[in-house]
């Protein structure tokens, strides 16, 4: 569960987490209308000059969303990019708001969980 093993991606472990949360991910992907209303509820988006990479919807669509579409198959490089997105671009303040009721923090948490399951996480002394 917690071994720091960056070279080998355990696709089965990722698929198992995706399967366990399929309903929630699918619902999020289907419901997101790309309305960008979540953007202004994110203080990071507001303080980073409206950088679209900080939009809550961008963060979940390009992490857990992409992973789901690729059926859990991911390269080390892609996983590290995903880490930057879900760890660096989000502080998980859980304040993001979706008018359709998508639980965005929960989807971003799921992205972090998958990263952690592969030993990919934010290191604060680097």
């Amino acid at each position, binding site marked *: 569960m917690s071994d720091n093993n960056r070279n080998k991606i355990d696709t089965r472990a990722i698929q198992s987490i995706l399967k366990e949360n399929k309903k929630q991910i699918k619902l999020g992907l289907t419901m997101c209308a790309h309305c960008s209303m979540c953007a202004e509820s994110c203080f990071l988006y507001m303080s980073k000059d409206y950088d679209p990479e900080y939009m809550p919807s961008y963060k979940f669509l390009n992490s857990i969303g992409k992973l789901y579409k690729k059926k859990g198959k991911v390269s080390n490089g892609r996983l590290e990019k995903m880490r930057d997105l879900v760890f660096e671009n989000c502080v998980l303040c859980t304040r993001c708001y979706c008018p359709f009721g998508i639980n965005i923090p929960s989807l971003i*948490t799921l992205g972090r969980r998958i990263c952690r399951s592969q030993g990919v996480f934010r290191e604060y002394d680097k």
Partner: protein
Amino acid sequence: MIKAKPKPLEEIQNYVESFDRILITGCGGCVSVCLAGGQREVNILKTELALAHSQSNTNKHMDGYTVERQCNSNLIEELDPIVADFDCIISMACGAGVQHLAERYPGKPVFPAVNTIAIGVDLDIGLYEERCRACGECVLAYTGGICPVTRCAKGLFNGPCGGTNGDKCEISNEIDCAWLMIYNRLKEQNRLEDILKIQPPMEWKNQVKRTIIQKGYENRYIDK
């Protein structure tokens, strides 16, 4: 952020001595930032405990799992299916996280693996210093942004005390006199009159659990 320090390994070993299946839980919040209880520290503790147990010929099953924040119910939920397989939990979160886990899993002993030290600032990587003791009565507005509770050795709300030894405190030559610092800061800002404003005695509220309800949320949480 909250700053913590890992407990000595022997102490943690003593906690879990009588348990065979041990879950080590990390926290992705403050304790990750201060390098005390994140996923990497979970891995290290797991290895150290495994080594200690193998040296004493005791066979224990251990695993590690890090959640994003142990102080948030939604974020510890994912531990539910995992915890059932273990006899006890070691939490590497701050005191709030440990208690939160203990509340959620009342049937499982939860042991702390870190000592929660302070609310502090990052001076450098791995070097932190206390700045706030969460006293609940912030007087920084009158003290030039220098906290007398954490910086004054006597925690005086009204000072200086008369025990100033040069620019140091009378109790130790290594401790700066916080009230001298406050005086100098206020003087620099031309606000020396603030030092004369007497602050009422501190109402130490740490004997009861403090709950924070932000403005605008009163109707939601307080019974009418």
